[in-house]
């Protein structure tokens, strides 16, 4: 076989190697462009900032219509997690069966419950060891939750947001 063919094959093989590398990278392009990456720390800062800039929605929804309401974890290992609220209550704790499973050594397995009643949302402590706090107040009986009030469960802080 001629020298030229050998050289062409040699260079062609190198080109093939790079074609492979580049096509593998092309497949990964989706990972680099267009993905929304949110730093948890940044999310925490943003969540801690006052919500004043957000226009307050008209507070006259029908009783069962609590759409757009959600629980947001603003502190703790799960910072940034969002639980959309429907018309059913939300169980918070470490047990795998809870709606919001906290990976938090300071929370009890079934720590607290957040439930709707008469168009408002209430938080109730389920006999947890470290207690549930609304602001600085320990929750003894079901307490009504206003949007933006921090609820401390173990090391995590959860807020009701609209």
């Amino acid at each position, binding site marked *: *076989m001629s020298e030229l063919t050998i050289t062409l094959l040699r260079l062609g093989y*190198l080109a*093939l190697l790079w074609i*492979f*590398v580049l096509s593998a990278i092309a497949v990964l392009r989706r990972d680099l462009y267009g993905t929304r990456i949110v730093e948890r720390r940044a999310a925490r800062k*943003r969540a801690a900032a006052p919500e004043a800039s957000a226009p307050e929605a008209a507070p006259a929804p029908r009783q069962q219509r609590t759409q757009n309401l959600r629980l947001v974890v603003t502190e703790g290992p799960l910072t*940034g997690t969002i639980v*959309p609220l429907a018309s059913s209550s939300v169980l918070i704790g470490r047990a795998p069966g809870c709606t919001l499973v906290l990976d938090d050594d300071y929370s009890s397995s079934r720590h607290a419950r957040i439930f709707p009643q008469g168009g408002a949302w209430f938080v109730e402590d389920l006999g947890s060891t470290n207690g549930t706090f609304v602001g600085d107040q320990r929750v003894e009986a079901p307490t009504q939750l206003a949007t933006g009030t921090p609820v401390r469960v173990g090391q995590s802080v959860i807020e009701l947001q609209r």
Partner: protein
Amino acid sequence: MTTIEPHRVRAGRGTELGLLAIALIIGIGAYALVGLGVEGEVPPDVVGYAAGLVGLALAMHVVLRWRAPYADPVILPLTVALNGVGLAMIYRLDLAYAAKPNHDHGFAGRQLAWTAISVALAAIVLILLRDHRTLRRYTYTAMVVGLALVALPLVPGIGQQINGARIWVRIGPIGMQPAEFAKIALAIFFAGYLVTHRDTLALAGTKVLGLQLPRARDLGPIIIVWAASLAVLVLERDLGTSLLLFGMFVAMLYLATERLSWVVIGLLLFVGGAAVAATAFSHVGARFEAWLHALDPDVYSRTPGGSGQLVQGLFGMAAGGLFGTGLGQGRPDTVPYAESDFIVASLGEELGLTGLMALLMISLVLAERGLRTAIGVRDGFGKLLAGGLAFVVAFQTFVVVGGVTRLIPLTGLTTPFLAYGGSSLLANWVIVALLLRISNDARRPAPVLSALTPAGGIPALDEPEGDDEPTERIRTVR
């Protein structure tokens, strides 16, 4: 930690098939070019060889379609490409060895057999291991197994000392390097251990100069692993494995805690250990000497422990230049252990800088896919395991290539997928199988959380409780 909002998920099995085709052309093309370069004709058995490689790759692809349909589409083709190029290079060296009198040869056939066994084992792992979280149950079993594997070569009778390092175990006709498997077992242990203890390791302690220092009593595990890797260095005289295990642990500690202080502590401990080892043990000292003064004539010609092999490898790569001599047209066989420790130098000579860079890029993308899997997967154990395994593949490549190119002292590790060695090939294919399994979990469409909201506050326990349950259910972030 960072949360990534996923795109609409494409399973990517079709893409995988396409990339697999190119990877197979690379492997088979290399084999044909070796025949052309050495003997002037395409090897007569190229069709059978091609059929074998295609069969293995397709079998793995079918297993993925069956058992892990959302697995990462790039990992398997990259692995197949590296393995194919390695096989062709070993075959090329084998042809040169066979022409020499009194030279051991027959590596290519054995490597091909090991490839088949490795692919089969990877497929078995994918079929049997339905959920990587099952491995978390065996955290401490994995620790015992890992430490036992590391210590196995010291057992008299089955342990063997080859070329000064006591890292071989020979039972009957089969020789193994158990440390290669130990790295998988220890990765499982580290992941399981750290996922439960990371809070204490990350949060407790005082801050000094912007570094969050851990408490003294939390230093226990890192000290133990450091001592174990030093013991490997002293008792088995194996610098590479010791570096690899310690590096993996430090990397996983960093992944788990996000505390730079662990990296600083790890580096300080390692530099201290290495400095002591270099002065106290002659074999480590000789490695440093050969690294720093490689081109001194008396260091070059010293046997054993001289820099002759290293410098010949450098000469080989220099002879290759930018575009290489072409497969089968260089003289890589003059370097001792050109098929195992110095396969990178052999490839550098025949494929040149361009080809070697492409191969390093393939390794890099492979590691990147592992780390991407770690970001994407939703449970902490999977994150740490995928991150640790990806790191260990990348780190091993770095240590070998760095050693051969004289960036760091040479250590006796094998290049993942490229170098000759059954244990290394088996272990790395198992790592790939684990990464594929975890990536299947990472890329699978996330379960919708609102569907989990139970009616009336009573949690719907339709799934069984236990270790298989995710401990973290994270959906998206604004």
